[in-house]
């Protein structure tokens, strides 16, 4: 087995004069993407009150219809500032405490399961005493 190929920092820096981009590769497009990302990010930072961080529950439904509800992160070992990696760590950790709910596939619909329930809910939400006094048809 061939030995490991090692270069010291000084050796590597010495070869920098022979720098060459792999044949057929143009990295200007990538550099432009990064510049664009930076510009976009700075715009978001300077735009007032357009983005608020909301701690929402994350729901994931698997092929069997099980829905996992992952609690929103709360303070403590918030890995903010560690970005995606931190967020993913949190999700992974919190999955230990996740709620697993079996969803009835028949109910995965925008229609109510029982029309009477929907009517009752509708009435509760929109109930107005003054309207109710003068409206007998409903």
């Amino acid at each position: 087995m061939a030995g490991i190929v090692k270069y010291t920092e000084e050796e590597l820096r010495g070869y920098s004069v022979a720098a060459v981009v792999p044949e057929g590769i143009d990295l200007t497009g990538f550099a432009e993407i990064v510049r664009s990302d930076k510009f976009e990010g700075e715009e978001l930072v300077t735009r007032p009150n357009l983005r608020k961080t909301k701690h929402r529950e994350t729901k994931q439904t698997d092929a069997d219809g099980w829905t996992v509800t992952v609690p929103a992160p709360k303070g403590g070992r918030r890995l903010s500032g560690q970005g995606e990696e931190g967020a993913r760590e949190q999700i992974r950790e919190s999955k230990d405490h996740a709620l697993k709910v079996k969803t009835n596939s028949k109910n995965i619909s925008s229609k109510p399961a029982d029309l009477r329930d929907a009517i009752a809910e509708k009435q509760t939400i929109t109930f107005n005493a003054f309207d109710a006094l003068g409206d007998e048809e409903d």
Partner: protein
Amino acid sequence: MSEELVQNAQGLSLDENNGDKTVLDSVDEFNVKHPLNSKWTLWYTKPKVSDSEEWSDLLRPVIKFGTVEEFWGIYNSVPKASDLPIKADYHLFRDDIRPEWEDERNSKGGRWSYQFRRKRDVDINELWIRTLLSAVGETIEDEENEVNGIVLNVRKSNYRVGVWTKSTNADSLKSIGQKLKLILKLDENDHVEFISHADSSAPAFIV
């Protein structure tokens, strides 16, 4: 006879026009490249700007290379660490290893990391190139291929440099942690911490 020899020898003389140069005098003509121990892939994570974006949408391989000269060509062509947007990452990983815990070559490992909390006091370009050189030059480790990759996280209030390893064996990893401290020019009082991917609730050990 002697005249004939002189005439023939004239064509062999080293004159100023064609005789004094070697391949070492011209970078363009010097095509010998120095192979690295492994091929490496540079990855970039773009900042998340929308809730609909998934991690897989943000992470992209940029380019793969296998020689010292290609490393420098790429390094000179991509944005410097200090030019990355906030919430962006650079990852340099060996071969085709993806910079994710889910990659089976990472799943049993972990990462050394250090967070620079005062960004203005840090020459991140110098520290990142030192980290890059220690990885591609294989001087960050004693064991061959223990290091899977290195990561730079750029955040609003800090930079974080990480070294991902394929195992969590403290005996072989502590020397990598010590070397990372030297690479990042940390004091004795500063500590780098190692966290296992399988149990990220607390550092497994620090040096």
